[in-house]
Each structure stands twice: as structure tokens, then as C-alpha cells.
């Protein structure tokens, strides 16, 4: 187990270096002089020279990249062009919010998805099963941003039940979490159904039934535990995707997360912010995936990645 974790951690190194190359390359790919982009169109030659000096833009690219990496490792992601604040400070303000939102969304979707999946699997081919299947198909087909707009229209504008955006109380997060979690619920429901059906076919389940164990006990005591293993992996994956979906959710509900930060950064051509946000989000996603895989290996003794 330990060897597996160490090996996976080592495999992360090239991916993380690659991710930093991508976010570093961003500024180089933008057409035009990076110094001009950083300083703004009306910059004088003097300012440009200073900026080139300050950001080391007059050095060869590989040297620049190594410097970028050296700073990034210790948490120095540069300074925002727009607000003049360190990018790391901005991320510290914004990223926890996105994490909270993604976490709430996975909580909602895990609950909804697992319940719907179990019901569908235990009532196979019934109208409940078909409803769950159709529901999950619609769930993965819904554009998050439209679902968000509809939710605002119904629950804020018409019914006045929930605030339409902003932060402050838990009520502000109810709609965003539900909207962001909708697609995940669908995926989790599908996985739960498939996994439960698979487990319910196993011999030990038949044995339990033959012994006269009640249906409820068979499902919850004997089957669910083993069915949960693949579902657990989906939790991890979906949590990661929720980080991505958060960009749209935060826009719809005007929430101060890292998704909004990156979109505003792109509009303002504030490249240090965009680079930093990309780096942090991707690193988090990669680490979450690693944790998921380790959990999978831990809970399923049949799986040994050697």
C-alpha cells in the first residue's frame, strides 16, 4: 500500500510540472509582447524596461520558467496586474469558497444519487427505476448555467424562498450547491444502480436471501457496503468536476470563488491571476484524484496496483 502511494506520488511530479508549463506558457502564447500585456497598452519604454527587469522577461524562456517554478513552489505566484495584490493572497480569499461550494455540491449529490440509485436497483424495471433513469439522463444533459437561471426564476423571483445570489448565510449556498450537484447526482445515481445490480447478483447475496435474511437487511447490510467501492471513486471524480462546474455556478449566482476570479482575470488580461488560479485548481484536482485512487485501493483488497 505504502509503495503504491509513493509510486503514485512520484508519477504526480511530471504531471504537476506539465501543468505549470501550461500555465506558464499561457502568457507566452498570447500574441504580442508580454511586457506590453503586463504593463498595459499606454506604457512608456521606460516602464516596459522596468517590467522586463522586474519579471525577468529579458532572460531566456527556460530560465524564466525555472524561476516561475521556484517561486510557485514556495507559494509566490506573482502580483495581480489589476489589484496589485499578491496572487496568493487573492487565491487564499477565493479558493476556500469554491472548495466549500464543491464540497456541499458533492454532499447533496451523493445523498440524492445514492438513494435514487438504490431505489432504482431494488425496484428494477419498475416505474420508479425508469423515472430514476430518465431523471439522471436529463440531469447530465442540463446546462448548469441554465438550471441556475431557472432556479433563480422559480425560487427567488417567483416564490421568494431563497436569495438569488451573493453570500452571507447558508441559505445563499442552497441553490448553488443543488444546481452544481445536479449533474453529479445523475452520474452517482447511475453508478449506484449499476454497482448495486452487480452486487445483488453475487452468490453471497443469494446465500443471505436463502438463509431467510430480510430484503432490507440484504440490501443495506450485505450488498451496499461492497457496492459502495466503485461509487466512492465516482465521488472523488465528481468532486473534481464540480471544481470545474463552479466557474459557471459562481457566475450565475455572483459568488466570490476562484472560478469568478479566473473569468474576471481573463477579461482584465490579468495573466498572473489566471496562471495562479489554473495552477492551484489543477493541482487540487490531481491530488483529489490521487486520494480517490488510494481510497479505492484501500477499500477493495482485490485491487493491488503493483
Amino acid at each position, binding site marked *: 500500500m505504502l509503495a503504491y502511494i509513493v509510486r503514485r506520488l512520484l508519477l504526480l511530479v*511530471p*504531471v*504537476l510540472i*506539465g*501543468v505549470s*508549463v*501550461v*500555465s506558464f*506558457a*499561457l502568457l507566452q*502564447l*498570447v500574441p504580442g509582447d508580454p511586457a506590453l500585456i503586463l504593463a498595459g497598452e499606454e506604457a512608456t519604454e521606460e516602464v516596459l524596461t522596468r517590467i522586463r527587469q522586474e519579471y525577468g522577461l529579458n532572460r531566456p524562456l527556460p530560465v524564466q520558467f525555472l524561476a516561475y517554478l521556484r517561486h510557485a513552489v514556495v507559494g509566490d505566484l506573482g502580483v495581480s496586474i489589476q489589484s496589485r495584490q499578491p496572487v496568493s493572497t487573492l487565491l487564499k480569499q477565493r479558493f476556500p469558497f469554491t472548495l466549500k461550494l464543491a464540497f456541499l455540491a458533492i454532499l447533496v449529490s451523493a445523498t440524492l444519487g445514492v438513494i435514487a440509485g438504490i431505489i432504482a436497483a431494488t425496484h428494477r424495471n419498475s416505474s420508479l427505476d425508469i423515472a430514476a433513469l430518465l431523471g439522471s*439522463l*436529463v440531469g*447530465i*444533459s*442540463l*446546462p*448548469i*448555467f*441554465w*438550471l441556475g*437561471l*431557472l432556479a*433563480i*426564476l422559480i425560487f427567488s*423571483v417567483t416564490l421568494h424562498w431563497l436569495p438569488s445570489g451573493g453570500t452571507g448565510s447558508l441559505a445563499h449556498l442552497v441553490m448553488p450547491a443543488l444546481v452544481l450537484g445536479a449533474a453529479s447526482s445523475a452520474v452517482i445515481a447511475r453508478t449506484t444502480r*449499476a454497482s448495486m*445490480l452487480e452486487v445483488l447478483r453475487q452468490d453471497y447475496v443469494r446465500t443471505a436471501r436463502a438463509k431467510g435474511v430480510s430484503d432490507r437487511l440484504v440490501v443495506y447490510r450485505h450488498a451496499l457496503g461492497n457496492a459502495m467501492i466503485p461509487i466512492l471513486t465516482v465521488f472523488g471524480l465528481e468532486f*473534481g*468536476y464540480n*471544481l*470545474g*462546474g463552479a*466557474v*459557471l455556478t459562481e*457566475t450565475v449566482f455572483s459568488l466570490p470563488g476562484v472560478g469568478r476570479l*479566473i*473569468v474576471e*482575470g*481573463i*477579461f482584465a488580461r490579468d*495573466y498572473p491571476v*489566471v496562471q495562479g488560479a*489554473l495552477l492551484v*485548481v*489543477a493541482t487540487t*484536482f*490531481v491530488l483529489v484524484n490521487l486520494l480517490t485512487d488510494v481510497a479505492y485501493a484501500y477499500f477493495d483488497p482485490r485491487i493491488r496496483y503493483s
Partner: protein
Amino acid sequence: MSGGLIVGLFVLLAVLAPVLAPYEPLRGRVVDRLQGPSAAHWLGTDELGRDVLSRVLYGARISLQIQVAAVGLALLLGTALGVTAGYVGRWPDMVIMRLVDIMMAFPGIFLALAIIAALGTGLANVIVASAIFLVPQFARVVRGSVLTLKEMEFVTAARALGERDVTIVARYLLPNSLAPIIVQTTLRMATVLLTASGLSFLGLGVQPPSPEWGAMLSNARSYMITAPHVATVPGLAIMLVVLGFNLLGDGLRDSLDPRLRE
């Protein structure tokens, strides 16, 4: 095959939009602004008095264009990478798969956002960004399929007959990988619409006044209270088309590749 029906209808409407649309998509009379559905405007009008039905129909053309171009591009690139990785193996496989890992390290729309940040907004860049976003998925599927196939006896036989690598790939490996590739292509037509319209909704994709569905929704946000119909129709269109491709993809998977059936 309800999925096929929805997709067929969508393609038909997109192609026939200029014939079917009762009004011009970009021009409206301001006096007609934000009207609800009526006999003259079946789906009402938007904030500039433009006919929503006509705009949604023309929007179908833009969506289809983005979907075909982006998925086509991703299919070409992804297949090339997947075949190389799976068939050649060794270090090319290592390099390509690490590249795929790096691209997949950006969750969801983030990779597309990074590309848009570098290239700028607009239709062409949305296509490029959405395509690159899909490349890893195709590369993985094709590589997996090639890895299984190349160990099979008919490939060994072809090699024993002295067939060249190019022939083996073109004549034996790719045709036998068609089923998973077709299923992927269909399902990705759904994903790419969500990504592209998402980018436009954020203001980072196709720009107004173009009747792209995501851009229409982004505009409609400001008028949601007075004219909710403007925000309803484009979203419904996206959902239906995505649902159609998902249904079609699932159906194709079941019929083309019975082993994958649940």
C-alpha cells in the same frame, strides 16, 4: 431511438433555419422589445425586439457548426495520438499518455478557459478550445482499443504476411475500433455543446449579437424578471440537443458494442 429522432430534427432545423425562420435573427424593431409569445412572434421577442424563434433556429446552425468542427478536430488529433501510443508503445506511448494526463489535470471547462485566455474569444477559438478539451478522451479510447486489438491473432497473421505498419493500422486496427470511436463521437457532441455554450455564457465564447444559445442566455439574464421566456428557450434547446446526443450515444453503445451493456 428517440435520441436519433431528436438529433435528426436538430440537424434538419439547423440546415433549414434560413427557410424556416420567420424573421432575421440579428434585426428587430425596438418597439417590439421583450414581448411574450404571440401569433406574430411564437416565442416572443428579446430586449432589441428580435424574434426569439428565429434566433434559436439560427443558433442551432452555430451549435451544429461548433459541434461538428470541434469534435471532428478532436477526433482526428485524438485518434492520431491514440493509435501512435497504442500501436508504437514504448516511449511515444509514455510521452503521449503523460501529455493526456496533463490535459486531464484541468477539471471540466478549465482547460478550455486556459486556451481562451491565450487565444481570445470568438467562434474559431471556441472551436479550438472545445476540440483540445476533447482530445484526451479520444486518445484514451482509441489507445485502449488498439492495445487490445494488436494482440489479436488476425493482427499477428497480418504481420506474418509482411503487411506494413501503416496497412495494419488502416486496414485492421482502425476499422475494428470504429464502434467505440462512433460511440465516443456521439457522446462528445453532447459534451462539446455544454462546454461551448458555457464559454459563451461566461462571455468568453461566441460574442453577441450572434444568436449562439449560451450568449443568448447570458444576455437574457438582465431581463429575467420582466421577460423570463427569453431565458427559457435557448436553455431548453441546449438541453434537448444534449439529451438527444446522450440518448443516441447510449443507444449506439448498446447496439454496436453489446459487451458494454449493463
